[in-house]
């Protein structure tokens, strides 16, 4: 088994702060992404605790109703635009070039621009609190509600456009990197599965995000220049906003979940000591989800009566097919594997079970008559949290525990990891399962309080306990990270006996990533190397 040597570029010594502020190294930018997005995760989480405190008991007045509107809007905006979407850019930045055996991304300086758009956009979005109130029309910013909000809404629009530019140029960068910079022997169908999910995500971002920029521009023109896009008095149409917004925002929910599926598909094989079951089926299922994702946006709009309901209902059910294929990929991988339960595996299994529930309760709402009953109730809030928290956030933590030894050269403590998972898993279900029942009882989403006579208090109180349990569960995680940083960097290249090229180089990798790369004969080059020969397939 030979390997291919790579010439080593020159390195330059620079002051540490200047180096981090001006770096174009994909690994450092990836770490900056991870720090920034985790910061916004904690900010968004704090806002969620305010929401849950307000809803804990009936007729509560913990926060005023106007402030409540701002808080739930900013909770969702921070979690979606400043945490979930850019956190995948963080993992993608760090991991994708390593997994394909490249020295960096295709366009390192554009990569730095993608990152440096995120913190100012976050500050801009939150600065609304200083200028008469932040955006308060929900993260969906429906017209005419969004027309009546204050300055915070304009700041929100500009911030989301900036984040859109960040993810659009980032997407082009990821695509060129994966199309052009793979190691010798790595065909597209030998690319690690995480790369494939980032690739499909990048296609969605490249094609859907500009439509959101167009929609937000129209909203800005309506609000500031007397435009009539969404104003029926001037011949416009309020439902037009929903069409252009969801044309982006439905593909966006796949942007938020696909790389998480990729992480889980890296973790499950490693800790089951088996190859991913049905690699190609998984790739085609990912493409299928991406493709179908452009044809289902109007299932958010059934109750407007202005969309072709049978078509969009049918297409939405169709999404269940490739998603089901993936569930079988994962179950087939686990089947008769030598499973061990390290923390990354716990979070991956948490993903599998919780995402399954989120997928099934989403399919309920694909049925038009059911959706008419459930639309805008807490059932929908339960659904989105089962896919985006039970799915995406669990995958984020699976990725953190899995790649922590690679990124920081240190291993996280297993016991604290198990405590983190256990508390988060229980807290998550306590917080969000009752929302299904509240939704079925008719509790609308986004209300600031409710009357005692509805008998919603018990379930809401349980949900609030769960939310605080999630908050507590992050403490062992933080303690774990702080303790790890006080230990020496002692991790070997490949502590998990994993399959992909990022584990070939040192932990953490040198600036130039690789001194050499092994020949790639399959999607598991390190497995082939350990076992002394190329895989037979």
């Amino acid at each position, binding site marked *: 088994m030979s390997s291919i040597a790579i010439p080593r570029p020159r390195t330059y010594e620079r002051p540490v702060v200047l180096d981090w502020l001006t770096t174009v190294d994909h690994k450092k930018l990836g770490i900056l992404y991870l720090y920034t997005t985790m910061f916004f995760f904690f900010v968004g989480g704090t806002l969620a605790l305010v929401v849950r405190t307000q809803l804990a008991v009936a007729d509560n007045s913990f926060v005023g109703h106007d402030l409540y509107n701002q808080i739930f809007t900013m909770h969702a905006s921070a979690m979606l635009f400043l945490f979930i979407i850019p956190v995948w850019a963080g993992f993608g930045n760090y991991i994708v070039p390593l997994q394909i055996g490249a020295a960096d991304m295709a366009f390192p300086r554009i990569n730095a621009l993608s990152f440096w758009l995120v913190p100012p956009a976050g500050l801009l979005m939150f600065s609304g609190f200083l200028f008469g109130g932040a955006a308060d029309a929900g993260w969906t910013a429906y017209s005419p509600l969004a027309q009546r909000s204050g300055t915070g809404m304009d700041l929100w629009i500009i911030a989301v456009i900036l984040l859109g530019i960040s993810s659009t140029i980032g997407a082009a960068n990821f695509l*060129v990197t994966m199309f052009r910079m793979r190691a010798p022997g790595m065909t597209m169908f030998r690319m690690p599965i995480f790369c494939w999910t980032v690739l499909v995500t990048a296609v969605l971002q490249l094609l859907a995000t500009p439509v959101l920029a*167009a929609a937000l521009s129209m909203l800005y023109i309506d609000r500031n220049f007397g435009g009539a*896009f969404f104003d029926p008095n001037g011949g416009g149409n309020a439902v037009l906003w929903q069409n252009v917004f969801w044309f982006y925002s439905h593909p966006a929910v796949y942007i938020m979940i696909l790389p998480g599926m990729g992480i889980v598909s890296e973790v499950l094989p490693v800790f089951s000591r088996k190859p991913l079951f049905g690699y190609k089926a998984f790739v085609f299922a990912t493409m299928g989800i991406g493709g179908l994702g452009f044809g289902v946006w109007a299932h958010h709009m059934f109750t407007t009566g202005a969309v072709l309901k049978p078509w969009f209902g049918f297409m939405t059910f169709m999404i269940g097919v490739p998603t089901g294929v993936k569930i079988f990929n994962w179950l087939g991988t686990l089947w008769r594997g030598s499973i061990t339960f390290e923390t990354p595996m716990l979070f991956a299994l948490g993903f599998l079970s919780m995402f399954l529930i989120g997928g099934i309760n989403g399919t309920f709402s694909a049925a038009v008559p059911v959706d008419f009953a459930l639309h805008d109730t807490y059932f929908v809030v339960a659904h989105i949290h089962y896919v985006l928290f039970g799915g995406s956030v669990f995958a984020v933590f699976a990725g953190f525990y899995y790649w922590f030894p690679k990124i920081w050269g240190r291993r996280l403590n297993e016991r604290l990891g198990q405590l983190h998972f256990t508390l988060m898993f229980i807290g998550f279900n306590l917080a969000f399962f009752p929302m299904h029942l509240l939704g079925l009882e008719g509790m609308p989403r986004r209300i600031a309080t409710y009357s005692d006579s509805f008998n919603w208090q018990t379930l809401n109180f349980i949900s609030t306990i769960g939310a605080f349990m999630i908050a507590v569960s992050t403490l062992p995680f933080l303690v774990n990270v702080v303790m790890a940083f006080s230990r020496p960097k002692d991790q070997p290249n490949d502590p998990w006996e994993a399959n992909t090229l990022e584990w070939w180089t040192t932990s953490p990798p040198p600036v130039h990533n690789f001194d050499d790369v092994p020949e790639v004969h399959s999607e598991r080059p390190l497995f082939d190397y350990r076992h002394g020969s190329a895989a037979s397939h």
Partner: protein
Amino acid sequence: MAAHTGTQHRQELSNGMLGFILFLASEVMFFGGLFAAYFIARADSPTWPPALPADKLAAGVELKVEFALPFIATCLLVLSSVTIQFGVWAIQKGDRSALIRWLFISIVLGAVFLTMQMYDYSQLPFRADDTVYGTTFFTLTGFHGAHVAGGIIFMTVIMVRSMAGQFSASRHEAVEACSFYWHFVDIVWIALFTTLYIVK
């Protein structure tokens, strides 16, 4: 890196051009969103242009556009697409001074287009807040105009770089990227002109 991008994957299209084409794809989607909004607004309206409220009628607002001046502007913009292509062909043969000449002509044509558009704006009997007709007209043509301005800056940068002695028969990627962008701006305008001025 050089070891396996330079030798293994030797391709016609460079990484930079591939990235630029992907960027143009996102631009197509941006204008796609604006066009979609226009067609939905037009389809939903019982008449097109929509009926004006009485106070706007009294104020002399009319929802109509002149054909002649924009048509001349359109011809000039299409012509500028041809001239920049001559520039690309010139540098492919290594003729840098011809590239500079063709770029200069293209920049002037683009600037004349923008000036005519601004004059046309000043003469129109309606504004962006006069029904969805005015809003879509100024949004679509305005975003296109901004792209024309961006293209003029792009071409100016390329021209200055050519005058500094850059680009040759073998290295002229930025010139081609610039011409792709300018053709894209031209094609969007042809679609806009057809939609806003011709289709009744």
